[in-house]
């Protein structure tokens, strides 16, 4: 009944993921790196849900995997932002090139 092919969702998530890869490798600001990471996680979630919908309808594994991945990524973002704010408080800088002291 649905006319959108599975490949449509996969193409979208591939573009999103590779945009995340590009940002992760080229950006120097910690917050923008974290945003690229967020894009990649989101692309993976789309894949899980799309595969669940098209290959295993009637089951909910992909649905719950995406659900738990969203929870885990929320926790990860909160901790990462706490660390970034702490780094900023100590070094007044969140540029990965200039943050090279691991002690405070």
């Amino acid at each position, binding site marked *: 009944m*649905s*006319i*959108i*092919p*599975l*490949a*449509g*969702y*996969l*193409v*979208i998530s*591939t*573009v*999103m993921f*590779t*945009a*995340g*890869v*590009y*940002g992760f*490798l*080229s*950006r*120097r*600001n910690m*917050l*923008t790196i974290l*945003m*690229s990471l*967020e*894009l990649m996680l*989101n692309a993976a*979630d*789309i894949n899980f*849900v799309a595969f669940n*919908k*098209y*290959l295993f*309808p009637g089951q*909910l*594994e992909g*649905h719950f995997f*995406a*659900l*738990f991945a*969203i*929870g*885990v*990524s*929320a*926790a990860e*973002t*909160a*901790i990462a*932002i*706490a660390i*970034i*704010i*702490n780094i*900023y408080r100590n070094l007044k800088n969140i540029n990965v090139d200039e943050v090279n002291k691991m002690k405070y």
Partner: protein
Amino acid sequence: MAEQIIFYVLAIVIVVFSILTVTSRRVLRAATYLLFVLLATAGLYLLMGYQFLFGVQISVYAGGIMVLYIFSILLTSHAGDKVNKVSLKRQLPAAFAALAGLAVCGHIIFHNVYKVADIVASDPTMQEIGKAIMGTNKYQYLLPFEAISILLLACIIGGIVIARKR
């Protein structure tokens, strides 16, 4: 037909704004573009018929995480600040890695995935989701649910310990 139009609109929004997210030089704008990407992703979930996931995506990602991002951006930079220009030496390998990944995945999708037939069953009801998340039988997920609640508790404590004033 309507479904297809909505899908194309969401696809264009996701592609354009995810590229803008990683190329915009103003951090606050990048965060706003990321918000659009996350909302469009929620739209995709709704299009696939997973209303619960749509709600979770809106409330956790677009609501919670984006507020955290915007607060931390405002704490660590001034509103009009631009990020330093990325040097070409850094841009080229990143662009190469991204394009290579895109080429490999695109090739696989167009040569293998189109062969998969699409069978679509009815959407899961809220009752099914609730039973699956709170049950202990096969294909029920009480244990990961508890594990993630422990993880969130550890995350709360960790956040307080890391970010408190010394």
